């Protein structure tokens, strides 16, 4: 009987402490205007803690037989384990992304069907600012499930991949700084000695790219009716590319990827700064539409 009395006293004490804490929280929330949600969550957590305290008191003082204890804890353990899976997997995928770095902050990326600049990589969400300026929060778990396209290339990694040593880079640097003619030819001849096809293809047109620290190589598609004479149409596209060479530092390229009822034209923009691409995208497409679909009389 003594045990039961002790248990009653202890539980009364726990209840008293619980009331005191609750009233304290109420007063604080009124004073400082915390968000209602946060206060509610805090209250629930405190309730859960008190229930756990009661159970501990029960177990310690009244000495419940082990079988009951085992069954109780097994049930509650399984429930909590299953419930936490979702959030645990969120957190773990966040850690995974931060540690493996498929993309970094400020990279121009395509995650699933969202395209934009990475503003923040957090534990739960990765924040991407789209070209139109809206912020999209993408759950890290979803990123792991969907395809990731990183338009930003770190040149250091790229050189390592293609087995180009620092000596060749130095050599290229010297050539590009000198006033010699036929710079392009010389650089490409040096690169062809390395005999890696990938890098030759990528940098066929601008070999200076190797000297940049990082570049963003963004591609997007537009669909065009090729109903005019080819000379005129292609000239229009060329003129746009030429116009934007000074903006991006490297000349944008275009290629026709499919030719059906409408032709699909792919633009490849190369620029050392991803932010420039985002800022200029709207102007570029506006110019494109204006040039391609000129209306008479306006």
């Amino acid at each position, binding site marked *: 009987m003594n045990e039961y009395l002790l248990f009653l006293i202890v539980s009364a004490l726990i209840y008293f402490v619980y009331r005191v804490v609750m009233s304290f929280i109420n007063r604080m929330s009124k004073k400082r205007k915390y*968000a209602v*949600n*946060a206060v*509610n*969550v805090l209250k629930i957590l405190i309730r859960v803690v008190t229930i756990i305290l009661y159970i501990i008191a029960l177990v310690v003082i009244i000495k419940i*037989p082990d*079988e*009951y204890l*085992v*069954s*109780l804890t*097994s*049930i509650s353990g*399984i*429930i909590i384990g*299953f*419930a*936490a*899976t*979702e*959030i645990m997997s*969120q957190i773990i995928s966040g850690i995974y992304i931060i540690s493996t770095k498929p993309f970094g*902050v*400020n990279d121009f990326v395509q995650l*699933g069907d*969202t395209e934009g*600049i990475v*503003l*923040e990589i957090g534990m*739960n*969400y990765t924040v991407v*600012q789209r*070209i*139109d*300026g*809206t*912020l*999209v*929060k993408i*759950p890290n*778990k*979803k990123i792991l499930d969907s395809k990731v396209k990183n338009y930003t290339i*770190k040149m*250091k990694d790229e050189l390592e991949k293609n087995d180009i040593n620092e000596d060749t880079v130095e050599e290229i640097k010297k050539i590009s700084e000198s006033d010699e003619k036929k710079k392009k030819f010389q650089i490409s001849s040096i690169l062809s000695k390395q005999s890696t096809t990938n890098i030759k293809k990528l940098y066929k047109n601008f070999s200076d790219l190797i000297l940049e*620290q990082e570049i963003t190589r963004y591609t997007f598609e*537009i669909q*065009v009716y090729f109903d005019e004479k080819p000379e005129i149409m292609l000239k229009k596209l060329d003129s746009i590319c030429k116009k934007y060479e000074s903006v991006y530092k490297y000349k944008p390229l275009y290629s026709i990827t499919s030719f059906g009822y409408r032709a699909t034209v792919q633009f490849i923009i190369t620029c050392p*700064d991803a*932010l420039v691409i985002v800022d200029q*995208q709207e102007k570029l*497409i*506006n110019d*494109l*539409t*204006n040039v*391609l*679909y*000129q*209306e008479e009389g*306006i």
Partner: protein
Amino acid sequence: MEEGDFLLSLGSFFVGEWEIPFMGLLILGITLILIYILTKLFSKIMRKRLRVKGIPPDMYNGIKFFFRIFMAFGIVILLTYLLNIDQKYIALISGIVGTAISFASMKAINNFIAGIWITLTTPFEIGDYVKIGSKEGLIIEISLNYTKLMYQDKNITMIPNIECLKTNIINYTISTTWFADQIFKLESQIEDAKEEKIKNNDDVINFKHQKQKLERMKKNYEQIKEVQNAIDEKEPNLNKKHSKYVDDDRIVRYTFSVALPKKPGKNFKNLEEICKKWAKEFEIQPKFIVLGVDAHIHYYFIIITPDPMDIIDYMDDFYKDIYKKLFSD
């Protein structure tokens, strides 16, 4: 132990030296009836108390659910005690039952915990205009199980909290404090980096990135500030009533796309006129940009307003205006 012993010992009870068969069953019956009455009473009292305290009904249902589970557990223990069944069976049965229950209640509890998670991490707050997955609307309530959204047709829909963890969230409401915080953090980081001399190549890129990010954030922040100032200047001569979701700190920057025929000159002129017309309703003149060409030209409208209810109220008219303007003649 002979075969008949099990049935005899089932529910037999000792009073002194006398063994009374099936006494346990009698006691069990009485206690079950008692428990039934008690639960009825308890649930009545609970319902009354919760109503007084203003706790939502879904909370009450959750409590009832857990209460029932614990009652069932208690009854099982009572059964084994009164019918003299070996206690190790309890551990066995409870293992099975526990797994079954936990599998069954996985979603409910997941939802519950997701609710706590959302209130702690706050990807959105009450009064934000958001897009969760493909559902778009104004957030009216965040409870522990559901998030309530008001659609553009003013219907209120409940989205399970677990859904919010799994899909993309676009929060069209931007708070200046968030950007201000970010800028402050970045500035302090850059200052720290300056003190240590940067030598490593990776660090140089990192440093550059941070600076770029700061620039970006500042640009965003200035845009918002500009808009807020414009709104503040306009405030005295406002005769429109704002809804309760307006906050000094937050503005709504809503974007949506329309696909229009391939007449850029005509489109530009007409859309400009529409934007000018709507400047009155939305405090700030809406903007539009071109972001795609295929069979149509894709225009993105950017509407900035302090009141999220504006978007729910006027979007329909806005679309109608575009339609009227572009296809009337």
